[in-house]
């Protein structure tokens, strides 16, 4: 394998050409339709409207943070030097790359509205799946944000610290497993055609 990730990302930088509707979205949409129907049959139209108003309210609250997350991701993608990122977090970065990903995920401020745009930006500038998996898993398991805001108050300090201690090796292991599987499933860089 010779540098799968940077190969398609070098000169042109194909932005993340997202299909507006992918299979995941169609699947979720279908699931939602089924659930709306079930709620309607159980609770009537009032039940449906109750959830709708609550969720629209939540949507309005989330929206500014989503904007902030998107801007953060775009700025980070722009200011990070691509060669350095693919050296530090690329497919050949080894254990060090997984550790950097883990550390980055652990210190990243904010919630999912920052973690995922930033992870997506890292992928776009040359990080491989392994390092990005380490980052996402680290954010979700040992990131301080959710632990401080929710887990400690609800589950107690002892349990939380102990649970985080147990989780410490997991991001690196998940990233390593990700790399191990990735080079076996997608041996050729050409595997990316289906996305563009």
């Amino acid at each position: 394998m010779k540098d799968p990730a940077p190969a398609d990302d070098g000169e042109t930088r194909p932005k993340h050409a997202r299909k507006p509707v992918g299979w995941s979205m169609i699947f979720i949409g279908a699931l939602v339709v089924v659930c709306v129907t079930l709620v309607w049959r159980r609770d009537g139209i009032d039940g449906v409207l109750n959830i709708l108003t609550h969720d629209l309210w939540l949507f309005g609250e989330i929206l500014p943070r989503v904007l902030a997350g998107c801007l953060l991701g775009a700025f980070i993608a722009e200011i990070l030097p691509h060669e350095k990122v693919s050296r530090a977090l690329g497919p050949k970065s080894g254990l060090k790359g997984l550790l950097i990903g883990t550390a980055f995920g652990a210190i990243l401020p904010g919630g999912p509205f920052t973690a995922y745009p930033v992870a997506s930006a890292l992928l776009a500038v040359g990080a491989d799946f392994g390092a990005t998996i380490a980052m996402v898993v680290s954010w979700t398991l040992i990131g301080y944000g959710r632990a401080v805001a929710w887990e400690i108050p609800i589950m107690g300090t002892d349990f939380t610290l102990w649970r985080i201690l147990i989780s410490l090796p997991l991001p690196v292991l998940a990233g390593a497993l990700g790399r191990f599987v990735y080079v076996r499933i997608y041996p050729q860089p050409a595997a990316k055609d289906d996305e563009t």
Partner: protein
Amino acid sequence: MSAALLIDILLWGSVFGVGLIAFRRGPPVFKASLREGSMDFINIVPRIALGVIGSGYIAAIIPQEVITGWLGPDSGWLGVATAVVAGAATPGGPVIGFSIGTVALKSGGGVPQVVAYVVAWALFAFQRMILWEIPFMPARFVWFRCAVSVPFPFVAAAIAMVIGKP
């Protein structure tokens, strides 16, 4: 809600910080990334809308009691496996996930099972995936990430069994 305010301050502070760095690289760089970020935002809003509104309905179909029932005090690896499924299926945000964990601990659930539950919730909670991960990340990455994460709630439970209670 001072925690939410703090998060917002940190978040916009970070945006401002990296924006400033981009601006010092020159206004064209700054403008390009500003446009890129705004386009991402516009593309993602419909997905987030579907995620927020949709997951509310999915959560209404999977009531919390179902999840709590799955986290009964039956111990051993079967209990761990059930806890993993329960973690992935838990509707709602962190308050609900951690509260269910606490209830399970207090009502006699085994510690390794509760650890498996919390870790599985952190890794796979369907609501976070639908709402955030799938809209923002390439679909291939999300499925791949989930597939390779499957062993880790079990690993966490195993470590918990070895090193004992907190």
